[in-house]
């Protein structure tokens, strides 16, 4: 029974292993087509270098060949990976395709490979060996899935910038994924060679690469079982067509193509999207005591952020200029100013996303400028983004788990060995993530995909993710945008409670009422310059601020009564703004020139819930 299907089963295993070499990079969001090149280099080197099976026995010969092949595949992927790792999407695909084609041409024109006529290799591989190899590879990717490393790769795939901001060293992770891919492709090349008896460079051409990619995508590139399902499907189609008595010829590839189209149309996530994936939310009582490596936070009053003459130019436009600012531990600093005032540019510089053009910035002892984003994150800076940058296809819990990257320990290698310490560490990370989710009130949507959450919930999820790294400085870029005023009030309570825990917070917000209520200090930016800085009371009374910002915002509020958050803010906190400032007359005193440059603050998103 099994013997009759041995060939088909072997090819399913081989196809799945090749598909895993694509899965290894697809899971990190890289589209590479170089795997056929790695596989052929590995296959030819192993076939040429490995001792003959007749001399040392089948299994030792195959194992030696595998070691050679995987080594060659990994080495080739490093050679290709180092110069191409900054390429993205289709550019990476073209570069890697070029590499594979170059390899094919070189092998075709080399003496030792036998050229187009190929190189004979003894058949050593049996169906059992093929499935053993597949099991090892599948096990590797299965254990990777729930590890810190695996989550980091998925985060990079979903949103590279956000992954960096969560402290993930994207370059290293991408290269690691690429090398894994090279080694797995090498394994495939060797196994293929030791099964088909004759390898020629044309066995590893563009069509082969596309075949591997299709198998991986068809199976699903987000779950470890994908390549096996994909390969089973792809290998069975010709078998089924034969069994169904469809005449050999063009009709078969046509039908196979059609079937592929149907599957991709109805299952865009691949065949694995049919498999439900439960997300386990740790119970609330687990909360007490985590094994996570906590950070040492600066003592209250220590300098957290020190900016001196900080400026940023974009082709002659001064987005930010000459900003001197100091934020001390325990402060809640609100950054306000009209749209285009340079607020986001300023926090992007503080969090390391954008290098400053002038001046210096020191954040938690790290000099910002050439320091990569993930290092600044590692120093204790965590942030949210003006436009949510969530890991859309991951569950809410997984989003927050990625946030905990910096404070959790790497677990992949220990998970491969089933060490109990890995389980402990994972549990601690899960508890941390669950606690952060509950803190922002999202405890009951842990299993929901981030993209399926409401806008307000997405904003809160971003805060939970930022909190999970136990930051010393939390930067929030317009966290209340898109929230209704009930949600905004709750957010403001959350910020107050975080501040009460001693967290230093810097946040940009258009909801001035909320800023005045929540902050210990407010900094006002206009045209890239600080025009005022002081306690909420001082700011609310500052005529410059009223002229530049509040006036315009108030005018907008008057024009659209439904969105009058400024009015609400002043009503709730009557001490914040003096009667002069709140009087509608002040609005009419705004200089026409200034008003013309001020855009209404985010009225659209404020209505959206």
């Amino acid at each position, binding site marked *: 029974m099994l013997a009759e299907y041995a060939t088909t089963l072997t090819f399913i295993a081989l196809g799945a292993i090749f598909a895993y070499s694509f899965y290894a990079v697809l899971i990190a969001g890289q589209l590479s087509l170089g795997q056929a090149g790695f596989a052929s280099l590995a296959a030819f080197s192993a076939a040429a270098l490995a001792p003959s099976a007749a001399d040392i026995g089948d299994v030792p010969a195959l194992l030696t060949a595998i070691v050679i092949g995987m080594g060659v595949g990994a080495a080739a992927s490093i050679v290709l990976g180092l110069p191409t790792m900054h390429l993205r999407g289709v550019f990476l695909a073209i570069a890697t395709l070029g590499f594979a084609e170059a390899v094919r041409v070189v092998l075709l024109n080399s003496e030792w490979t036998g*050229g187009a006529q*190929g190189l004979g290799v003894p058949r050593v591989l049996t169906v059992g060996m093929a499935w053993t190899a597949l099991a090892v590879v599948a096990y590797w990717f299965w254990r990777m899935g729930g590890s810190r490393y695996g989550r980091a790769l998925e985060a990079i795939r979903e949103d590279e910038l956000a992954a960096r901001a969560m402290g993930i060293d994207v370059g290293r992770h991408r290269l690691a994924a690429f090398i894994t891919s090279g080694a797995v492709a090498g394994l495939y090349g060797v196994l293929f060679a030791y099964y*088909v*008896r*004759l390898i020629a*460079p044309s066995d590893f051409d563009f069509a082969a690469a596309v075949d591997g990619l299709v198998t991986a995508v068809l199976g699903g590139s987000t779950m470890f079982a994908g390549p096996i399902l994909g390969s089973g499907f792809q290998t069975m189609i010709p078998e089924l067509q034969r069994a169904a008595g469809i005449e050999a010829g*063009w009709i078969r*590839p046509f039908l196979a193509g059609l079937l592929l189209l149907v599957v991709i149309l109805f299952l865009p996530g691949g065949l694995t999207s049919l498999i439900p994936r439960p997300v386990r939310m740790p119970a609330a009582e687990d909360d007490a005591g985590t094994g996570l490596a906590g950070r040492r936070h600066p003592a209250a009053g220590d300098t957290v952020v020190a900016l001196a003459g900080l400026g940023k130019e974009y082709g002659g436009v001064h987005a930010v200029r000459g900003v001197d600012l100091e934020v001390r531990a325990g402060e809640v600093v609100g950054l306000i100013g009209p749209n285009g005032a340079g607020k986001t540019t300023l926090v992007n510089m503080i969090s390391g996303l954008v290098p400053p053009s002038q001046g210096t910035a020191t954040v938690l002892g790290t000099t910002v400028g050439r320091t990569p984003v993930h290092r600044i994150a590692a120093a204790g800076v965590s942030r949210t983004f003006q436009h949510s940058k969530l890991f859309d296809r991951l569950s809410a819990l997984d989003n927050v788990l990625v946030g905990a990257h910096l404070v959790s320990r790497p677990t992949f290698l220990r998970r491969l060995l089933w060490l109990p310490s890995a389980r402990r560490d994972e549990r601690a990370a899960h508890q941390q993530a669950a606690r952060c989710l509950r803190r922002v009130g999202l405890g009951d949507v842990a299993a929901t995909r981030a993209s399926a959450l409401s806008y307000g919930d997405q904003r809160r999820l971003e805060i939970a993710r930022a909190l999970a790294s136990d930051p010393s400085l939390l930067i929030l870029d317009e966290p209340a945008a898109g929230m209704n005023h009930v949600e905004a009030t709750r957010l403001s309570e959350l910020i107050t409670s975080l501040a009460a825990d001693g967290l230093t917070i810097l946040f940009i917000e258009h909801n001035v009422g909320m800023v005045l209520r929540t902050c210990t200090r407010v900094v006002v930016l206009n045209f890239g310059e600080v025009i005022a800085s002081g306690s909420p009371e001082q700011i609310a009374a500052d005529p410059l601020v009223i002229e530049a910002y509040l006036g315009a915002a108030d005018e907008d509020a008057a024009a659209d009564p439904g969105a009058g958050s400024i009015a609400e803010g002043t009503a709730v906190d009557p001490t914040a703004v003096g009667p002069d400032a709140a009087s509608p007359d002040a609005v009419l005193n705004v200089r026409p020139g200034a008003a013309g440059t001020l855009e209404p603050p985010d009225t659209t998103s404020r209505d959206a819930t």
Partner: protein
Amino acid sequence: MRSTTLHTVAAATAAVFVLASCSSEGGSGGSEASGELSGEGTGDSCSIEGEVPLGAVLSLTGAAASYGESQQRGLELAAKELAEKGGITYDLTIEDDQTDPKQGITLFDQFVNDGASLIIGPTLSNAAVQSDPIAQEAGVPVLGISNTAAGITDIGDYIFRNSLTEQAVIPQTIAKATEEFGLEKVVVMYSNDDAFTESGFEAFEAALEDEGVEIADTLTFSKADTDFRALLTEAQGLEPDALVVSGLIEAAIPLVTQARELGIDVPIIGGNGFNNPRLMADAGEAAEGVVVGAAWNSASDNPENQAFLEAYQAEYDAAPDQFAAQAYTGLMLIDEAIRSECAADRESLKTALGELEDVPTVLGEFSIDENRDAVHPAVVQVVQDGKFAVLE
């Protein structure tokens, strides 16, 4: 929506198992039938009760599809004629290996398991090296109908072929051409990314050396190339007595046309790949004077060949090429071998194939030598008035 998808997948999965079980039953039935595979009488009077299961693995799609299609036509024509002849019923299953080693190996495995008495093919020599060992290990005879690379029949004593190797055809071509045109210096061109044309080149190289003809330069191209002007200009600069080209028909047509456009009027000598009526059909005038060494003399007036040309033209409304002729001959030889012992089981067929001698065929008087390779006259042709004629 989701549940519909689930149902579809479930139904498809169920279908897989049903179909798989069907095919496995069919398979075991085939091998049990071997008891009925011998009959009464000899030669034309031989009559076998059971159907003789034959498998053919051809490249009907993929890179080698154009040869596979010709072979399919040749086989089907032969099968049709044999069915009319009667006495023996053939159950010929033609399968497509998609020019993919994985499919080729799987198909050989299936034919072996399904009880085929003999496997015809595969189309490409590389595929033969990969798949033939499966049949050899299982004791199933294989008849290659287009494998021309050296060493195919060395795989084992069950592996036969009716296609002459390049080593058999090309030296003859070069010897004849040297004698005819007094060649002293030639330029060799070949596509180096194809196993067939590369081994053809090696044979040309050796033959030219044997004849003492100088190779002024060796130029390589890709089988996907269509523009040869740069290479041809380079060749022209060397002022050769002839161009020797090992390429497939897809390259032959533009290459010959462009050479004549550039004013290269020295003879162009091609190998098996050129032996295709499309050369004259598509290159027209330019094909005149092209010398083609081939295993099949399409202009041969032996009665088998004349009948074949006529039948093929009537059936497909096109002229056959060498692949079709060899495929047709292949099935005819199998019939001959079965009738000689009036037995169609694997062992009898293996023995009978090895004993084929002086069988009149489309390819001429045909024998199998002690290495299980084909022995029949090769031919050196030249294109004259839009037709292949024997170079004399």
